[in-house]
């Protein structure tokens, strides 16, 4: 169904305006990705106010390009100064740096740039072919299915993160709580507004997002001042492709496997590119003939993890476009932008705005293809980028944050929301509470509540209604399994351990 709209889509995408936007966003993404501590999500959050002034397709193009470039570019500081630019590179930072120290920095970054592009293109293709089919199925979904889907997404966000499950769960509840501030959608009653009229519409999403991702980083930069070590010299960037073809060909099954793993993890709501790269790195090590070199400059592990994190980035858009449920925090931002554009994500959008959707898919492919030439450019300039101290950037980033959170509805209350939630996020992160579940909670709070209340009204308050439809029951079972399995494993481990002590 996507192909009949390709012609119109090409017209939307192949314009000078689009090219200019994608090119500048690519540079922005490469810059943010290469500066350690500035994350891909933060880059996207800072872009959001600018996207208000664009049409839907350029707006999404801006975000997709920035994110794809930032995820790749975070490998550059990982290789040169052993600090990952974003969490997505954390899994293989030692391998990248070990290769750099062995004088193979060109090879290391060459693998990273091509594997990233291949993974990204694979994920985009899956998105292009799977999303419209899924959308057809989900046209029959009712509030019961959506409630379980949303719950599944929130569950995955809690379970798959690296923080403790309890703290992730609390972080999620904080997000859901923030989402319930404002006028209740069913009864019109103002909730938790403390009498402030500016809170009647709820906590504005964009300032919340900018604050929670940027302010903690700024406070840490101003106060903690963890300075990165000096960068290793990069030599000739054109040495990148020497022998690269051979390496990729040798690891072609790895490429296919990790692109698949990455895409699937991306599709799972709540789990993003960082988790994808950890898991596919672990899988790669398990099946490798040389597991002992992992962490010590393994090219194989690098191929796997780099392909996985970029394919996850595209995979995350499947649930986002089809159900309006974000696959990770970047897609959470994109969903917010789509709503503002009146392009409410969900199965209907595939019918009503098919041209736009096809154009967005094309953008994905383009952005991932652009990684190779622009990545080369970035690698060439990497040493210079890494010389910019974060401390100099911090006041300017704060300036952007103020402008960004003000411009959403031209009101200073956005700025206050940004700071308050930013300080909250700083305190949360200092104490081991992850911020990503909170963001998902803010985005999905209304969806969960509306579907819960609608379903309860439909079933006359009886919880049985949630299990009567087959897909709803299947989803409920999946959620239950995800919650129960870790508990069973934990109890068994404990039993086994106490058994060993007594014998």
């Amino acid at each position: 169904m996507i192909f009949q709209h390709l012609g119109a889509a090409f017209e939307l995408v192949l314009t000078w305006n689009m090219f200019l936007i994608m090119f500048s966003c690519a540079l922005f993404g490469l810059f943010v990705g290469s500066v350690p501590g500035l994350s891909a999500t933060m880059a996207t959050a800072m872009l959001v106010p600018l996207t208000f002034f664009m049409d839907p397709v350029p707006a999404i193009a801006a975000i997709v390009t920035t994110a794809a470039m930032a995820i790749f570019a975070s490998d550059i500081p990982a290789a040169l100064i052993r600090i990952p630019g974003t969490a997505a590179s954390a899994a293989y930072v030692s391998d990248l740096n070990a290769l750099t120290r062995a004088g193979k920095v060109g090879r290391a970054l060459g693998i990273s740039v091509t594997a990233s592009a291949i993974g990204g293109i694979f994920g985009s293709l899956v998105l292009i072919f799977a999303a419209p089919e899924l959308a057809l199925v989900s046209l029959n979904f009712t509030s019961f299915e959506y409630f379980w889907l949303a719950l599944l997404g929130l569950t995955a966000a809690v379970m798959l993160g690296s923080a403790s499950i309890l703290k992730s769960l609390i972080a999620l509840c904080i997000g859901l709580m923030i989402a319930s501030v404002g006028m209740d959608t069913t009864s019109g009653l103002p909730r938790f507004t403390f009498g402030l009229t500016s809170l009647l519409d709820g906590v504005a999403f964009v300032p919340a997002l900018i604050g929670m991702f940027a302010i903690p980083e700024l406070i840490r930069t101003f106060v903690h001042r963890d300075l990165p070590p000096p960068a290793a010299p990069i030599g000739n960037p054109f040495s990148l492709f020497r022998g690269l073809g051979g390496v990729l060909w040798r690891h072609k099954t790895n490429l296919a496997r990790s692109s698949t793993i990455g895409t699937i993890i991306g599709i799972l709501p709540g789990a993003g590119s960082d988790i994808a790269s950890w898991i596919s790195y672990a899988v790669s090590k398990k099946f490798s003939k040389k597991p002992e070199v992992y962490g010590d400059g393994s090219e194989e592990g690098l191929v796997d993890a780099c392909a996985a994190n970029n394919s996850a980035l595209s995979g995350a858009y499947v649930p986002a476009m089809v159900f309006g449920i974000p696959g990770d925090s970047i897609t959470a931002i994109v969903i917010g932008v789509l709503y503002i554009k009146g392009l409410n994500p969900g199965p209907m959008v595939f019918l009503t705005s098919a041209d736009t959707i096809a154009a967005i898919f094309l953008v994905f492919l383009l952005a991932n293809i652009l990684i190779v030439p622009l990545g080369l450019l970035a690698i060439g300039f990497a040493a210079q980028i890494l010389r910019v101290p974060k401390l100099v950037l911090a006041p300017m980033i704060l300036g952007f944050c103020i402008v960004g959170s003000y411009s959403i509805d031209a009101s200073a209350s956005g700025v206050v929301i940004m700071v308050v939630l930013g300080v909250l996020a700083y305190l949360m992160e200092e104490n081991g509470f992850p911020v990503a579940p909170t963001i998902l909670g803010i985005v999905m709070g209304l969806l969960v509540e509306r579907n819960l209340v609608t379903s309860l009204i439909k079933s006359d308050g009886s919880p049985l209604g949630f299990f009567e439809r087959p897909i709803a029951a299947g989803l409920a079972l999946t959620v239950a399994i995800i919650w129960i399995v870790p508990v069973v494993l934990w109890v068994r481990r404990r039993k086994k351990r106490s058994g060993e002590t007594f014998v």
Partner: protein
Amino acid sequence: MKVHDSVIGALLFAFGLWVLATAWSYPEMPGQSIGPGTFPSVLGALFMAGGVLLAITGLRERGMGLVMIDPGWRFPARFAAAILATAGVVAFAMVFETVGFPIGGFVLLTALFILSGYRSPTWIAASAVFVLAVHLTMTRLLYVPLPAGLLKGIL
């Protein structure tokens, strides 16, 4: 600032209690067993349960003070920069329309540069150029109505 899990747990419990009490005070919808308070009550209960669990696991772990502060906070200039970047920005927001982004932003950025140790005139010029460039881009190119404030009529 790291706070002991048992303290956070207690705070979460109290917060959950407050949420629950507030949610119960909301009127129910006529003829329905659910209302605007249903979802928040679930959250309130989860906060209370989470608080208790966190406090219990926190009490098992020893060897950490009730509150631990990053050594960076002891430097007056760094402390001041962080306060300026948070409370200072809130204060700036209060007078955003009257003072305007160009003047307020310039003062904020310059102060932050000075507190971070960048004291040469170059950095004062850099803040001026940056703020002006952002202001003009936003107002002229993107039509975001950033207030010019004190510079109204000039910019």
